[in-house]
């Protein structure tokens, strides 16, 4: 299988993540969809690293994984605070700043 097939798979996975963000209104599912998109980008990075026989793509994939973990930590803290203060995780109901 050529690396291009992996890029195609990564595009499919990214679109599934976009679909998840657009149709789900629960904060945890939206965070999971963001993680799906990040992993799709990681797959594309590693596929292109194999294509060009250069390890840069894998190094960047490592950094993306680290940043994703840090971002999930902060995002989950925000979700916990949201549930505690608003009582709901639906992002449609967190609209105090909307005019």
């Amino acid at each position, binding site marked *: 299988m050529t690396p291009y097939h992996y890029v195609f798979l990564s*595009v499919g996975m990214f679109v599934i993540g976009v679909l998840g963000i657009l*149709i789900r209104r629960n904060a945890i599912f939206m965070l999971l969809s963001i993680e799906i998109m990040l992993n799709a980008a990681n797959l594309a990075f590693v596929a292109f690293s194999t294509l060009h026989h250069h390890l840069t793509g894998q190094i960047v994939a490592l950094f993306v994984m680290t940043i994703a973990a840090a971002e999930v*930590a902060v995002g989950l803290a925000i979700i916990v605070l949201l549930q505690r203060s608003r009582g709901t995780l639906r992002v*449609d109901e967190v609209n105090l700043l909307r005019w």
Partner: protein
Amino acid sequence: MGVVAFTLFGGLLLAFMLLVIFSRHPAYAVLYFLAGMFCLSALYVMLGAYFVATLQIVLYAGAVLVMFLFVVMLLSLNEDTEGEGRKLARTAGAVLAFSFFVIIFNAIRGVLFSSPPESIAGVMGGVRQIGMLLFTDYLFPFEVTSLLILAAMIGAIVIGKGKMEGNS
């Protein structure tokens, strides 16, 4: 053999990700995501990125998804009965996602089904090779990442801590 493995793990990966976004209960979604991470790690191994594959399992299965499950259990989240948006928003979202897929597919269609210039095997993504690059060429991003993790830790603790006494 490679085709069978790629089709199996790729199909399973897409199926698990679809199950993640369409499942009702957040705990099930996290576990489907975990299964998808194992399939993704198998794909990394097939691409020759062994260190990335190992760290994928360690980081995602061991850290990120454990955090997700902790939060799901802490907040006692039940089935998300009214989780989806209105019907118009869902239809618009599906149309947008599909058109996005069509656009990106057309962008890479020219090279997608052509043969690659060289063989796929041979990029050794082992610990030694990644380490040699990580500590010479990419030393600065490596150190900055440690600062970023520190900032994320402090931020998560401050955000999740709640009210502090004596704070107006």
